[in-house]
């Protein structure tokens, strides 16, 4: 299982795709980081007098993590599209399926391989934010809550992407459909207008569960929502690949 994860990550970095994605996303994030910092500098003098005003963490770190989430939404289809679609197109899947591994091992392995890439991206973003700690104090509790949220979010992206990739043999189709589904999950709460009543659409929204964590609230219902999404899509993938064996 970890062997598959390791191999997945290794293959990702053998292609220029991973390097390009990592470099460009860091470039974008660095630029956004600077704009947030600039904005903070411009309003710092005005808000410093107000008691309980938002600090560095709220005005720089959290917006940057939200930006990172949107960048992850854009790049995750590109990373996950290869997982099964490409194996199927190159007919390399029998190598894995005739090895002494269960389908579950293979799917989980691929999932962790992809997740490891996102963890690397998150780590770089967190390092960028942590550089602020040199000159000021950061709220590390809020920051870690936000990072946990981001990790759960990208893990859900990966799970959805891997499932879409297991449905087709065309990586492009996998990427487009992953993006469509993720985007739908992102904006689905636009359909619900009420803020107090429980609404299915807003419960389904990834964003609605991600936002509280950005504010430093860790709710079990948000965490279980993400875990539910991850497991559901991974199990669907296992079932889908097993069905291929059966008919």
């Amino acid at each position: 299982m970890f062997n598959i994860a390791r191999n997945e990550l290794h293959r990702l970095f053998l292609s220029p795709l991973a390097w390009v994605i990592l470099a460009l996303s860091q470039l974008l994030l660095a630029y956004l980081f600077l704009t947030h910092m600039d904005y903070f500098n411009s309003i710092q003098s005005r808000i410093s007098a107000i008691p309980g005003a938002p600090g560095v963490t709220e005005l720089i770190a959290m917006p940057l993590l939200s930006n990172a989430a949107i960048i992850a939404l854009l790049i995750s289809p590109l990373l996950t599209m290869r997982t099964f679609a490409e194996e199927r197109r190159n007919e390399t899947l029998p190598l894995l399926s005739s090895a002494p591994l269960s389908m579950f091992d293979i799917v989980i392995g691929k999932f962790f391989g992809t997740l490891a890439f996102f963890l690397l991206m998150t780590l770089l973003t967190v390092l960028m934010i942590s550089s602020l700690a040199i000159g000021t104090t950061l709220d590390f509790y809020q920051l870690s809550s936000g990072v946990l949220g981001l990790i759960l979010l990208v893990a859900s992206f990966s799970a959805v992407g891997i499932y879409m990739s297991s449905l087709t043999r065309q990586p492009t189709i996998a990427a487009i459909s992953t993006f469509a589904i993720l985007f739908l999950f992102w904006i689905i709460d636009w359909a619900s207008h009420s803020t107090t009543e429980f609404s299915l659409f807003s419960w389904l929204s990834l964003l609605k569960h991600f936002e509280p964590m950005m504010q430093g609230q860790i709710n079990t219902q948000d965490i279980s929502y993400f875990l539910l999404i991850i497991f559901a899509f991974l199990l669907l993938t296992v079932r889908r690949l097993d069905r291929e064996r059966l008919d």
Partner: protein
Amino acid sequence: MTDSKLLLEAKELSRFFGDTLAVNNVSFNIKQGEVLGFLGPNGAGKSTTMRMLTGNLAPDNGQIIINGIDLLDNPKQAKACIGYLPETPPLYKEHTVTEFLQFCARLNGIAKKQQKTAVNNVIERCGLTDVSKRLIANLSKGFQQRVGIAQAIIHAPAVVILDEPTSGLDPIQIREIRQLIRDIANEHSVILSTHILPEVQMLCDRVQIISKGQLLFNDSLQMLTEQMQSTAILVGFSQPIDTQALNAINGVNNVEKIDEQHFRLSYLPEQNPTQALLKNAVENNWPLTSLMPEQHSLEDVFMKIIREEDAHV
């Protein structure tokens, strides 16, 4: 050989694709150290059977026992005893040969300490030493096929299953791959599918002929060769000979005139008329130029077996 261990047993395998019956009630087994040739025209069900044997496809009916382990009940343990090379070798082309084989070694659960030895071993055995640092994508088809074979034997499986290992290669590469398969057969049992008949003659101990999903012939190569023995001799003379005179020879059943000077003499089994013919030729001063026992090629036997079955249906 009769009491050597059964390594793979397939019982009453059947498989449907939708409404089409791809494999119909096929049973066979393979013993230790045997090379089994799976022979059949394209679309006969060879690949389907092999995919079932390697756990890539679930049979609709039947049982597969590998090294005493049921493949459907304990897939992980059973798969560890099998090395499989599908029709298209499953290779990660962006890897170098060594990297890829290291991954395969880990994939097949070889202990960390032995991985390096296993990889080096298999590189040497498959003649990949010179290309071990090159990317698989840049290798020729023959070398890619070798990497595919290396991948199948890296964990020293009891049974190696090769699906058309020589298809698409040039004659020199074919010879090299055959040599390699013969080497492998010294240590492992091999199941080999092919539609090239001489290959079976060269490599296999036992032959199975499969057509339209049914097993038509399952016996040793010797039995197949016996079927190839024909009961006819071809004779040629430098001047025309009377058919009647040939017909009169003791043992000759029928004379078929090929042209004025060449004849095909068929005889009943156990009554070979060659001696009598020679005696007659000397006595009557027939200018005999050639004398040759007719032999069916494997092709003929193959076609015969498949045609017979069609006739039955």
